[in-house]
């Protein structure tokens, strides 16, 4: 298949333009005198950053871009040459390697030096170390927002107050200092209102996975759908427009009874409905997706599409409670939830989305995601009676993707579902 054959819908083209424009803004920031904040996807405070006229540069997104563009392998080698070991998170190494090799954005121009590092700590320990390394390189101000982990599976008022206090006393004053712009809470309210609008449409889109046939793929397609809201566009008119457009497209697919769109066109048959846990593999993204749609496997719900916010559980950014809602947003991110909460969420998906089973993509270099995944799978098998399976890949290290191994496991899993169905059909016992 050539690039020209790949089907692009208007929403995809719109997102592509948004991303390209954002990179153009980033790479011209220094020349234009605009300041830049670096921050991570989970718990990102995009609305707040925008209040200070700062641009938002997301290192994991750069790593993902480089993974999909087949550049991460070289960057990782470069980082390893500089002393980062093989088992370190490959987002980190791809980012550090990219910085070492000219820090070029997809438009071929160098990314700017950050003016501030804003770490909103939401469960990933590696993020802290990552910014320590970046700080060492750029010697810029660093803000660390301590978000309490939901160890007991609930958000208390204390936790919320603690975050709000930090926002008031630490985050906002530092951003004011870096940007030279005074904080305006009404501006924040406007951005939050805009966020909520887009979030409504995103949730509507993700929940169409409950339909049969599903008009979306909530993992491979889903990572595109979460793009704008998880990154630099939350709280912007662009994001509102993108989600409105996407929603219209999916409404049309539903009306026409169509399945999700894949790089090779509309998926015709849907034999297996799966829930997927874990981030995707980015270096062989297309190849992995093909292994699903070739077999008629559609992902109806995934947890990865919740790392930047669990909007489908009801959370919305709220202009009436601006700082509190930023606190709740950070506390509720998927990576900040404890294992029982993750199991409950997956169980909800398996049941409500009427899935055939759970597939876990266990990421070699991501302990934060992988720890406990096997236990989660067992618990869910026991609770739902639905079969689970495990594949092992990596984020952006191409060396850790073995197509034959993954395909073998996937095919075995799909055939296992078939076998179980046959047994259920003959005995009348349904899993």
């Amino acid at each position, binding site marked *: 298949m050539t690039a020209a054959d790949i089907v692009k819908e208007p929403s995809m083209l719109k997102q592509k333009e948004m991303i390209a424009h954002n990179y153009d803004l980033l790479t011209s920031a220094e020349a234009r005198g605009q300041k830049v904040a670096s921050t991570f996807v989970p718990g990102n405070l995009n609305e707040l950053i925008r209040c200070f006229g700062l641009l938002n540069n997301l290192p994991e997104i750069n790593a993902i871009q480089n993974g999909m563009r087949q550049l991460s392998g070289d960057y990782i080698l470069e980082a390893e040459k500089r002393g980062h070991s093989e088992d370190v998170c490959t987002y980190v190494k791809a980012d550090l390697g990219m910085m070492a090799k000219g820090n070029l954005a997809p438009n071929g121009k160098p990314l700017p030096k950050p003016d501030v590092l804003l770490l909103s700590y939401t469960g990933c320990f590696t993020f802290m170390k990552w910014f320590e390394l970046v700080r060492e390189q750029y010697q810029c101000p660093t803000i660390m927002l301590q978000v309490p982990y939901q160890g007991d599976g609930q958000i208390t008022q204390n936790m919320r107050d603690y975050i709000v206090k930090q926002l008031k006393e630490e985050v906002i004053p530092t951003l004011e200092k870096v940007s030279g712009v005074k904080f305006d809470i009404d501006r924040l309210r406007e951005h939050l209102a805009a966020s909520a609008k887009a979030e409504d449409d995103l949730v509507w889109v993700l929940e169409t996975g409950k339909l049969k046939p599903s008009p979306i793929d909530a993992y491979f397609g889903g990572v595109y759908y979460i793009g704008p809201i998880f990154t630099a566009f939350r709280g912007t008119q662009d994001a509102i427009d993108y989600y409105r457009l996407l929603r219209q497209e999916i409404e049309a697919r539903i009306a026409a009874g169509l399945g999700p769109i894949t790089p090779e066109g509309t998926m015709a048959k849907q034999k297996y409905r799966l829930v997927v846990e874990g981030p995707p593999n980015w270096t062989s993204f297309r190849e992995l997706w093909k292994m699903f749609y070739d077999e008629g496997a559609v992902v109806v719900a995934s947890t990865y599409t919740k790392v930047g916010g669990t909007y489908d559980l009801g959370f919305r950014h709220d202009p009436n409670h601006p700082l509190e809602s930023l606190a709740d947003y950070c506390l509720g991110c998927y990576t900040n939830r404890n294992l029982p909460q993750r199991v409950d969420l997956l169980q909800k998906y398996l049941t409500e989305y009427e899935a055939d089973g759970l597939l876990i993509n266990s990421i070699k270099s991501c302990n934060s995601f992988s720890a406990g995944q096997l236990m989660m799978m067992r618990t869910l098998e026991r609770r739902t009676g639905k079969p689970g*399976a*495990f594949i*092992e890949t990596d984020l952006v290290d191409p060396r850790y993707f073995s197509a034959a191994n993954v395909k*073998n496991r996937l095919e075995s899993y799909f055939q296992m579902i078939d076998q179980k169905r046959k047994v259920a059909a003959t005995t009348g016992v349904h899993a």
Partner: protein
Amino acid sequence: MRCFIGIDLGSTTTKAVVLDESCQTLGRGITNSRSNYDTAAAVSKQEALINARFTLLRRELSGLPGIEETLESDLASLERAFRQVQFLDQLDDLEATCRHGATHARFLTQKDGIEAALSEVFRRLRDEAGRMFVPRAQKKSDFFRDLAGSRFISLAEGVSKELKVNFEVLTNLYDKAIIEVENRPPSGAIDKKFLAALETIRAKGAKSFDSPEVAARVRQALSLPLEEVYVVGTGYGRVRLPFPKEHIRSEILCHGLGAHLMYEGTRTVLDIGGQDTKAIQVDGDGIVENFQMNDRCAAGCGRYLGYIADEMQLGLHEIGPLAMKSTRNLRINSTCTVFAGAELRDRLALGDKREDVLAGLHRAIILRAMSIISRSGGIRDQFTFTGGVAKNEAAVRELRKLVKENYGEVTININPDSIYTGALGAAAFAQRAANA
């Protein structure tokens, strides 16, 4: 006769199983996987069909009065004679291919010498062939490449000195020719080879096949058409099989079902093959409930033992028995093939005995398998161990120890034909698909 065939294309060997209508095994065949999976599939299938003829012969002749005493030994002689006919046939092909290779322009000046040397090497190979197929002959392998290869090199060395022909030239010709020969299935009609083998053993005095009634039954067994109703492929090379998609099954499912058919009580299956290790949990009907396998790296798989054997300049079949002689527990930490090689050399340099190091390496591979088993849900009674490594007694010893330590008393099944487990499961799927 309606036949259902399963073919398991492994990374090292390709296996085939033929089942009859009642799901009884008629025949099994194995060959090396080579670089050409189509040929490997064709050869293993042909081998299984040949083996099926012997089963049919045995079925036809069992219980016939007057031959009870001699039948089994005569059938064994017949099989050896058949193998010899087949071997000589392939040897003819190999010689013709070597001779054709020798016509290349670059050999022009040495043409006569090379031809004379090839004639002499192949004459000696044919002379020796009889000894390879006597009862209880020790053979390192059943594959033509190994059988012919090791003797060719050895004989060519002597002949090249005697006839003053460059030894390298002979081995080059052989290397090129063997690839061609093994990539085309043995030619010639199988029934003709059977008849030739029958003549040979009759001439040597085999009694069982003398009477007209037996002769008629033999003809009956040899001429019965074997109809290939449905073929299912599995194993790593399955996508390369020239089969439609519905004729392909995952090896996880095939191993699960195959193990269930061998031992009905099986609940956990461990398969250690050439390049992967699989732990499979099955229900009472052989249906897979869960599985785990090694990830991107082949550490702790059959190839690991192959690599170790190479490092120690031993045959793969020799390392198990040598490890059994170990008297000391030596801990080898690495299942990484490359690290283990380094650790092995290090240990030997420090003066540790080869058998102790080997026993430690066997333990390391089984430890790795134990980890995969526990991730799949642990061991439930009964436990069936399959794959090439199940033939290695030192690996089995370590497995028994570790199973007992971790899971207590568990029935451990190891079938002598466990290498055919995946192919058996595939054949059973073929039978089910055809009768669905």
